[in-house]
């Protein structure tokens, strides 16, 4: 009895703390996740929405999006944006495919991630040194990388003939859990830790919230912005490794259509598009929501056109609920 009372008091305190930050909005994404899950579970009970194989399907689909979303959360947190992630996925998958054949799975994955680091460094350096908004820089590199990927194997997909690579990065599983899901969990853990427990994460948020103040506090904001864009690109290239592992190919159009899905996932998750506020857990949950929507709407038997409409509406509602910042909501309350 006593224990219950104490736990209740602790919960109440935690809630009070959260609501005084205006931070309850950061929980919208989890509420949305549970509601959508519940609705689909009830409506699609007979279609096996909750079956293990379907849930695993959703997890596998969400994995590369979630990995990209974690990276994008850092780019957005620093008040930058990375539009080149889709093409980075494609190029990394091709580089992995090319390298795996000659040097084995480890070098293959390493080379792919190295591509990501190089792309991110280029994005960051151009953004910071030439002083062009990252929106435009990465719009440019998106095209360039996309072109390089298309040239690399003349629009042909490149097979990956390494069982180790496929098992480790996609097709394999540990017990009942797909390796894709495990990798996603690892990326989530690293991202969450870096954002909340490392000085670097805090400095990324400070830089994104107010670059002039951050600079006045002595932060080297240039280096921080470059590193945030590098994290985004490295995450994208790792998503490329996961896609390549799952499909056992590298191809120029992998990830090409994922950019907007990733941005939607990150923003639904409570990360501000304008910097200074980010949630890695929210980004991953957002990615799960996007995958669940895809899966559920298909199982419901909606036409592709109706799927698009339904998905668009749900995204707008979720973003509207999660996006407003605490200070704005204070303003709203004061007439």
């Amino acid at each position, binding site marked *: 009895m006593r224990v219950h009372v104490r736990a209740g008091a602790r919960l109440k305190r935690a809630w009070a703390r959260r609501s005084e930050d*205006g931070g309850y909005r950061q929980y919208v994404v989890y509420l949305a996740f549970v509601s959508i899950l519940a609705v689909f579970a009830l409506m699609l009970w007979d279609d096996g929405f909750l079956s293990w194989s379907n849930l695993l399907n959703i997890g596998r689909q969400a994995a590369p999006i979630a990995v990209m979303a974690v990276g994008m959360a850092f780019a957005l947190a620093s008040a930058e944006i990375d539009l080149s992630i889709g093409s980075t996925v494609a190029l990394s998958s091709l580089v992995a495919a090319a390298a795996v054949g000659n040097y084995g799975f480890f070098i293959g994955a390493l080379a792919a991630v190295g591509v990501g680091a190089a792309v991110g460094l280029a994005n960051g350096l151009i953004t910071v040194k030439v002083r062009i908004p990252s929106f435009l820089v990465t719009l440019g590199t998106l095209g360039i990388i996309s072109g390089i990927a298309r040239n690399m194997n003349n629009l042909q997909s490149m097979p990956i003939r390494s069982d180790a690579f496929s098992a480790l990065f996609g097709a394999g599983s540990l017990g009942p859990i797909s390796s894709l899901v495990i990798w996603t969990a690892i990326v989530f853990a690293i991202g969450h830790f870096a954002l909340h427990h490392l000085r670097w994460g805090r400095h990324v948020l400070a830089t994104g919230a107010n670059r002039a103040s951050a600079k006045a506090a002595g932060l080297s904001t240039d280096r921080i912005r470059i590193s945030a864009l590098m994290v985004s690109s490295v995450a994208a290239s790792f998503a490329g490794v996961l896609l390549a592992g799952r499909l056992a190919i590298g191809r120029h159009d992998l990830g090409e259509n994922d950019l907007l899905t990733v941005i939607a996932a990150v923003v639904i998750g409570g990360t501000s598009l304008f910097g200074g506020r980010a949630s890695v857990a929210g980004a991953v949950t957002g990615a799960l929501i996007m995958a669940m929507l895809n899966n559920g709407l298909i199982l419901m038997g909606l036409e592709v056109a109706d799927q698009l409409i339904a998905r668009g509406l749900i995204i707008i509602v979720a973003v509207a609920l999660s996006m407003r910042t605490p200070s704005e909501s204070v303003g709203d309350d004061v007439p």
Partner: protein
Amino acid sequence: MTAPALSVRNMSKAFRAVQALEDVSLDIHRGQVTALLGDNGAGKSTLVKCIAGVYQPDSGTVSIDGETHRISSPDVARTLGVETVHQNLSLIDSLNVVENLFLNREYTRGGSFGSRIGLLHKRRMSRECQATLARLGISIPSLRKPVGLLSGGQRQAIAIGRAVAWGQKIVLLDEPAAALGVEQAQRVLDLIVALRDADVAVLLITHNMDRVTQVCDGAVVLRRGRKAAEVKVDQVTKDDLVAFITGAKTTDSGT
């Protein structure tokens, strides 16, 4: 006579065609509050930003305790013991009180490895933040609140508290009491007096002559980027100061 805590010599700074500072020299001393006065656009904030490492002056030197340094970045200024409360740049709204107080000075745990990767020691920062604010008599309802949600007075108190917390020897304050209510402004003044009594050298930019006569020992007046006067506050009247600011009186009296 010991060397002044901070000594600026012949500092000039231009922004394209606009000469914001021209050949300005001034000294500030430990245990004294020096007012930096001047009309809008006189160059006060530019001067403070040059000392704080935010801007690089075109020419001139800054000496601290008699030693000349090149202040190439805000980080260098901080290491030399100069803390600045800028007009608008002092706090990051979305970070909470603790995070702001320790921004770029975070405590880490986990030994040398922890400090290399920057593993935050949150509990220690929280504890010390609480202790510091209590010591300064600053009461903030919640340290976990983003500072953007606090009142102007509380924000200024935190910004000044940051300078105090780090035991800096020189504190530059750019209009710390502007836009504050009467009571809050008084509390900021109390903090400034506390700094002075702790033997800190304070440079205070203000437009309020009452504050000058209330807490300042000396005053430097800038006019159109040049030094118009450097006086001891007890040797002049408020009207004299206003006259220096508007240019009605130009002699460099007092010193």
